[in-house]
């Protein structure tokens, strides 16, 4: 799984940190986070808040932003902590860059979930548009 996500993320990401991310199994965990967080966010929005008052783009945008922000924070702070524990020292900007890349994937996944889930809801077919 680490290898699979490494290949996937490294399609748009290159840094001096890549080998250490791989060796410390961070791609695997970050890959799961960037998939599960937006899927969970979309599931909660479309099925937990499937009410008429949440129709429109505002509630959807809030849920989208919360999902992406969560993913961004996890993929920034957790690798930084794990690599620090392994005795590795990289600039914070390196972790922010890595996290930004995983967030791009999260955005794509949230959008895919949006298109899939909204057709299965009672009230949120037109959320966000």
């Amino acid at each position, binding site marked *: 799984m680490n290898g699979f996500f490494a290949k996937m993320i490294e399609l748009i990401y290159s840094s001096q940190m890549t080998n250490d991310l*791989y060796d410390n199994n961070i791609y695997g965990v970050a890959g799961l986070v960037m998939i599960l967080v937006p899927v969970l966010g979309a599931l909660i929005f479309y099925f937990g808040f499937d009410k008429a008052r949440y129709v429109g783009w505002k509630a959807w945008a809030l849920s989208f932003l919360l999902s992406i922000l969560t993913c961004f924070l996890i993929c920034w702070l957790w690798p930084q902590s794990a690599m620090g524990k392994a005795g590795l020292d990289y600039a914070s900007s390196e972790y922010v860059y890595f996290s930004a890349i995983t967030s791009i994937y999260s955005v794509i996944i949230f959008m895919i979930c949006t298109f899939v889930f909204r057709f299965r809801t009672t009230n949120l077919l037109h959320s966000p548009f």
Partner: protein
Amino acid sequence: MNVKKYSPLLLAALGLTACGGGGDAALESAIRKALKDGQVTTEEWQDLQAQSANGPYSDCAKLLTLVEQVNANVRQKAEQLPSCESVKKAEQKTALSFALFVENSNSMMGYFTGNTAFKDAMMDLGSRIEDKGKKNDYYFINDQPHKIGQDYEEFIQKMDRKTAIKVGNIRISKLDEMLGEAVRQVTEEGKTAILASDFIYDVNRQNPKDAFPKLKYSIKGKLQKLRERGDYGLLLLKMSSLYDGKYYDYQDRPTSIKEERPYYICILGKNAQLQEMYLHYDLKSIRGFEEAIIFYQPDGQAYYHSVLGQSYKAGQFSRPRGQELIQAIEKPELDKRSGSFEMALAVDLSTLPAPASYALDKLNYSVDGGNFSIKEILPLATAEIHKNDQRYLGTASHIFILESSELPKDNFEIKLALKKQLPAWVAAAHTEDDRKIKEQMDKTLGLQYWVSGISEAFNELGEDNHYFQIKLAVSN
């Protein structure tokens, strides 16, 4: 089954089994005891060898197999067991016994006069080898070896001009024959031979340019025989001492001098012994020590090395994943600003049997592949290593900074080798005409010829001659 009925029979069978395996069981028990602390020390290994000397495990390999079997079944497994090779090396190191030859021909008498560094060095060297508790033989040597005895005290007493001048035919000084005798002591008597001499060859008034090539090949021939007999080598020390006496040039004309002059100590023996002496006998602290070089055929020992991921880096490269050390790199790219590629390589040269100055001179290295060259060689203590690269340092002692301004597009291999070549001091201390010796007190007649003879004897014909070679695979 009626257990009570058969119990005497079972007990008898158990007893017989135990008695039958008695010998091995005792050995296995000793092995278990040795493994208790998670390692087998040299002393423990020697005890095991002594215990198994007359049995089926007298052979090192068989004993080692048994130790491995026992180790596999104990709770606290030893991580590293001794190898037969390491045991052999340890035995060689402990089996040092010396034959010390001191040349006492006419040309050496100046070193025997007064309180000279030469006499001091001989007695110091004698004392150091005596400390090892082995029976050593002491000789004066000129036309042939003249045994002083095995007593160090007697050797000290005889280290003066009055005694030295009376022993043997001091008019004759045949360098190649002296080396031949030293070789004989090593190959036939199993000793480590030490020969102290000014290494000035008696050319019988011939033109040195005619005589020295013959000397070179005579020395080469004698030492080649030594090398062919096994893993032998030669350690050469350049020393300096006050010379108070008459110096005879190649035309046998004397010149009175009282100044510092070079002389040399040749140590011949097993490679392991020489390396042990070079690294651990602190020969540099002997009075008058100036330079040293060891000639031997390397046994292909692998030197610890790893590329550093972030230190002294220009451009980009990746490394194979999941490896503890970086011994190959992938996709190297030039630095866009400087247009060059740089990377650091950490290497452990602490066991290299060559002087530190030799290992730090980048002219002594060759780098093949990828248009690479050495930018700098730094002792680890002076290098600035990125925190993330600490994990790659291991036992490294030096950092090599390699650079290239043009990287091949295909896969290639970088080969970094420390060449076996004569150090610069050999050429600096060489002269082919010693008639005006007062103007060249630091030079030795014909030095380069006989040192070349030694060097060539220990080099493989047609082979790349180097102390070590490190290979780094580069894939694109």
